């Protein structure tokens, strides 16, 4: 029942196209830098990882934590954002 942020709403409202990875909810400047450092420079690459992990929440969260050291809230926001995007567009 947690409310979603504006970022989440903006992301889920339309196909992500070439949006940068910082357009994901929960991913800000710092996390975005880290993700880009690992090669995830666009949101769709992270989406790819999300799909490879079969949209599993725990696996995706662990992966996020390992990759960019996201905290619980950020993980949850990102997962929720991607999940909702998938529900809408995939």
């Amino acid at each position: 029942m947690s409310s979603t942020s504006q970022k989440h709403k903006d992301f889920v409202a339309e196909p992500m196209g070439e949006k940068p990875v910082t357009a994901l909810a929960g991913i800000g400047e710092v996390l975005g830098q880290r993700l880009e450092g690992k090669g995830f420079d666009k949101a769709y690459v992270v989406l790819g990882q999300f799909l490879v992990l079969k949209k599993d929440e725990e696996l995706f969260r662990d992966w996020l934590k390992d990759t960019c050291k996201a905290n619980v809230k950020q993980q949850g926001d990102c997962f929720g954002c991607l999940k909702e995007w998938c529900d809408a567009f995939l």
Partner: protein
Amino acid sequence: MASTQLSDEELFSELKLFGFTPGPVTENTRPVYLKKLKKLREEQQQRGSRPGKTRSSGAINSTAGGGNTAGSRPASHDVTHLSSSRRPGRKSSVLGFSSDESDAETPLKRKGLNYSSKADRSSGFPQQPKIRPVTTPRVASKSQYGAASTLNINNSSPGPCGQRSVSSGWGVRARSSPEAEGRDYDESGDEDYYEGDLEKNSRSLNGCGASHLNTSKLAADYSDSDEEEVVALSAGEQQRVRLEQRRSYQKAGFPFHGVGRGSQAGGAARQVNPPDSLNMLGTRREEGEEDEVKRRDSDPSGGFRSHNFPRKSIYVSLAENHGGEAGHNNHVDGEDGASRSGSSSRFAIGLRPRFSNYSSLSQTYRSNHSNHTAPNHSYSQALLKQKLSVPEDELLQQFKRDEVASSGSFSAHYLSMFLLTAACLFFLLLGLMYLRMRGSGSSEVDGVIKSHPFGSDFDTYDKETKDLILKLLLSLHDHLANVAGQHDCGDQQHPNRSLSMKEASAYLLTQNQEFGGFIETALEWIIRTGQDVGIRLTGTLADEPLTDWSEISQLESTHPKMPFTCRFRRAFFTVISRVFLIAVVVACVGSVVCYMKYRWRREEEETRQMYDMVERIIDVLRSHSEACQENQDLQPYLPIPHVRDSLVQPQDRKKMKKVWERAVRFLSANESRIRKETQRIGGADFLVWRWIQPSLSCDKTSLMPSKVWQGKAFPLDRRNSPPNSLTPCLKIRNMFDPVMEVGENWDLVIHEAILEKCNDNDGIVHIAVDKNSREGCVYVKCLSAEHSGRAFKALHGSWFDGKLVTVKYLRLDRYHQRFPQAQGSSTPLKASSLHASATEAASAAARPQHRVSTNSSGFS
């Protein structure tokens, strides 16, 4: 595990063995799947030891009989459910509950749950064979409760790992403990369970990590209080303890007690409680369970009690420590009954810590003896007692306070009411007594008149005479008082307040014949004495002091005696009138104060408005004078009415008239830069204002933001800039607003600004300012793409003159199409050094000439 050497395919197949279908194992997903594999493997280990226990618990459940329906089965089901699918169902339930739980806790909790439930099974299992033959209906109920507790534990939001495991451990113990009733088995069984749990918990500790340890330690702190609670298992005590101890509470412990108490309306209570607890946080369910248990406790069965509280010895010792609290029991009971739903939340809060206490207690227990059996339990008990005593004391104190508060809060209501009524009654009585005393006056008893105000001379009479006289006087006094009182009360019988001499004598004679002779002497004595004896004698002529009794014409009482109701009524009216008077006075004063405040506020408001108006007038005049300087056609003065009409809206003019007048007066008195004079405008004479401050030349330019670079808005990186510069030509947007530009050569200022910004980059060969572009475009050509890239980095995203500048690359051929003169330019432009220091338009005017020359040279 040799998981590090697993290849992707091996990892994939291993994961599949666990029934988990992994996605592709790539370099990104590898670590995640490795972790998963580890988890699954550990789970399998637990699972391997578990199937036996589930069976045994199932057996017990079945033997237990009817009582065991929902409780045990869901518990076992839950366990298996837990073991099989870790995530989906439980995760949802977990997520649903613990919105504020940390992520670290969640997997740990889950793990802990797994382990704890497994632990229960494992610990319970060795004991089962021993105990199984001793199945009784109690077992059923107990296991039901235990199972219910475990069920609830499992369902409720995850608390600390330790709690969970311990509680479930308790649940298991509960199951088996009743079977060992009346034997040391209980204790030993508990010990073993403790140990078993300890082992499992230590494993779970390893698995869960530090947090689990912490939670179990936390539980350890609480377990003392848990023990306390458990101790007070005697019907009232238990409830009291529960009330007292707002600690985390292991529900498992309570089911023990509750079971012992008797399975009364367990289902009903449970239904009541869960809804209650559902209203609270999910963890409260545990407490709901406890409440339910508590209620069950109200129906004690003594034998059970001794058994069902395996640690009774410990509890007893604990109970002794808190003997004094027994008195609260009744209170608590009543409270419990009365404010169940309300207090249940409180209890819930209290129970939760107890819950963890329990677990920690068992943890400490286990930690104390690793693999000891029954013989060691005494040692552990002692240790337990010891451990309990210290923190328990603190907790007890806490709970005492809490309990007092809780019981007090319940009875405090009644207590306060009682006190209030008592105070009211007291004051009422006081008032009544006062009235009565006043009314009765000096109620001297007949014949006990020892004191008299007549002095020592009176004593010369013999006793009889004295008595007679005094009695006479007394009766006279009383009669007169009555008369006066009745008269004062409006009784129509006695129109006169006073009695005449004749009436008085007649009355006295009727009282006592013997009075007759002494009337005169008595009256003489009254006259002689100067004190007020309650009778006032007045002669025929008022204000004349009497000297002889014969002069007396009226007798009046100075202490009228009125009937009680009359007195009361009078007093009441007096009080009312006085109160009314005071209220009126207070109201008057209050209204005066309010009025003063209102006036003061109004005045402040008006003053503020006046100053505001003054400021606006000054602004208008100043701007007008500046405009006049530039435009010589205007008159340097403004008529006052015109100023007013321009500043004040027509609809406000009447309202603001006063403010305006004050402003005008203020200006004429306090403003030196404005001079009031009379001028003839259009044939009519006007009072005008003239601004007479010579304008400061540097004012204007310093006030306006000059064309400077003001910093970068965002850092340039790959995201918002092209990774490499594409062409040597740049188009810079939003550097100026053509409409707003004033003065000549502002484009040269722009040139300078760009060059200044890129002074490290000496590759700019051509700059063109598009004066007519709405977007404020400036076109720049550089020597090479590299130079333009550097210029791009320097300019893009910077603030210039309050505008955010953006840059983009242009195709070289287009650029040459637009600016053919740039085709030949190859000399880098340099910023003029003068520009860096001064922003004066004069120097800017001087520079362009220099620049123009360089430009032309560049072009050629």
